[in-house]
């Protein structure tokens, strides 16, 4: 009898499994436990559908999208704003109809159409600046990265990371660069390369390097700040006179998706005040929904508020996309060798 019941239950499960619609999401690999708890599981419960999550680095997932454009498997993709522009230019993504999103009006202005043509919608953003040992050095400018106190004690993002263009953009600004190829900034980094401890590829390495006093300063995105504050060391977040940079992560609808209605529902859910609040409270993502209210203690670890958003020197995605190759070439000639 028990066996028969189990069998029946299993049959029931497989039938519902087969009937349930699936929605495939392509996203970053970080904090998946948190996303599962606050985003995926509640959405599945609400829609009675099944989410399939594919994770990876932003650029690599765009390539996959391109490779499978004839028969796309992914419905919604989360990536950087410039990768979104790249995908839009390649005709891989759909124009988003804002009217289908009930939470659209709650978004900060900068998140509504970050790459133009309604091809993407921001779901989180972050500032990028310098974390430094306030007892060892004082940082007021991006050019201070080359201060003598930091000789052999500074980590910069490698050109392969999404933080590198932002760091270069600001350093270039600080040293009076005038050209879009950031030649002055790249030159500056090239001259100090011997004094750079490492050009890091994984931001997750930074807390350990700071703890071991391997480095006194590092350029990083605010999403890594919580891990550094936990060290309990005298480390400050710089507010350089040239400003902080930053980036927006966005969602796009994949062209040819067979689950568009469900995809809209998912995007809307992700942007809702409730989900954005929960993701912020667990320090997973900074909210773009202006209705999200956070305690100071939480806000301190994130990038929060309309004023912060306005103050950031964001690299226009079009410039980044257009110049990225020149920056990489310049970097390879001056810094990597």
């Amino acid at each position: 009898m028990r066996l028969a019941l189990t069998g029946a239950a299993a049959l029931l499960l497989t039938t519902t499994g087969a009937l349930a619609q699936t929605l495939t999401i392509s996203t970053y690999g970080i904090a998946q436990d948190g996303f599962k708890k606050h985003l995926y599981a509640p959405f599945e419960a609400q829609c009675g559908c099944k989410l399939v999550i594919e994770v990876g680095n932003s650029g690599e997932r765009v390539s996959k999208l391109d490779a499978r454009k004839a028969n796309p498997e992914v419905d919604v993709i989360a990536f950087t704003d410039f990768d979104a522009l790249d995908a839009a230019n390649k005709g891989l993504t759909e124009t988003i109809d804002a009217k289908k999103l009930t939470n659209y009006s709650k978004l900060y202005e900068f998140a509504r159409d970050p790459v133009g043509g309604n091809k993407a919608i921001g779901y989180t953003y972050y500032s990028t600046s310098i974390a430094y040992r306030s007892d060892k050095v004082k940082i007021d400018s991006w050019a201070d990265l080359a201060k003598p106190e930091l000789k052999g004690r500074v980590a910069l993002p490698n050109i392969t990371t999404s933080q590198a263009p932002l760091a270069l953009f600001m350093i270039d600004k600080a040293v009076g660069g005038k050209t879009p190829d950031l030649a002055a900034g790249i030159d500056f980094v090239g001259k100090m390369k011997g004094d750079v401890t490492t050009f890091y590829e994984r931001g997750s390495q930074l807390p350990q390097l700071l703890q071991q006093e391997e480095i006194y300063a590092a350029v990083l995105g605010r999403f890594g700040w919580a891990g550094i504050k936990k060290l309990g060391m005298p480390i400050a977040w710089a507010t350089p006179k040239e400003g902080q940079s930053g980036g927006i992560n966005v969602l796009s609808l994949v062209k040819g998706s067979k689950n568009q209605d469900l995809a809209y529902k998912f995007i809307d859910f992700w942007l809702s005040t409730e989900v954005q609040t929960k993701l912020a409270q667990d320090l997973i993502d900074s909210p773009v929904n202006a209705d999200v209210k956070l305690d100071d203690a939480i806000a301190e670890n994130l990038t929060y508020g309309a004023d912060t958003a306005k103050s950031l020197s964001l690299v226009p995605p079009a410039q980044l996309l257009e110049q990225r190759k020149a920056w990489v070439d310049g970097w390879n000639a001056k810094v990597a060798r």
Partner: protein
Amino acid sequence: MNKLLGPALTLPAVTFIAVGFVLPVLILLSEAVTVNGAFSLSPLIGFFRDPGSVEVFWRTIRLSGLVTLTSAVVGYATALAIVDSSPSARGRLIGTLILPLMVSPVARTYAWVVVLGRTGLVNLVVVGLGLSPEPLRLLFTETAVFIGLVQLLLPLMVLSLVSALENIPADVVPAARVLGAGWFTTFFKVTLPLTREGLVIGGTLVFTGALTAYITPAILGGSKVLMLETLLYQRIRVTNDIAAAGVIAIILVVLSITANVLLKRVAGGRSQ
């Protein structure tokens, strides 16, 4: 019947290797010599024209060679000691030797980040003994990668040499001694030639291992000490340049085979 049985038994494994390994590798390698669908050597030439890539190429050969040489010298001494010990101690020693191979390479390499760090054990000793007024910068240098690779690969060399030493007929060394050969003569004229096969196997394993190690150079060297393997990863992940990655893959395969052939030559030449 028996003639057919042999090949028939290997068929599942051979099919698996052919479909799951040889074919994809060939497809990958073919990417390196095609431009717009036609055969071309330009990706390969491009690699050797780029000074940055050439630097990585020579660094990889230099470091792998140095790691192999160090492992051979240090490994030989260790292997002799192990073979000389009592059977029960031998088991324990080999067990200890294999133990690090059972630890995740990521955890092991991160341990080196702590040990080699500015506040780590090595620098504690260096500064404590007054060898340097302040802690040395070891992390993200070739030295760090070298140390990490030797620790990673030394057991393979020792194991190959232990089995080679165990296979030496028991009476050849006493015979050489009886005939008046000293320790050095016995070692260089008898033991070493008889274990050259072990050195070739160990050397190939260590050299290939150093060539294709990813985690060690990635964590201990970072982007300032790129090796072919870390460069390959960068080409795929960041620039999505499959052709460049294919070129590096070809170079790695060629280097591995060349190393094996050369080592056999060297070992074979000495005995004649």
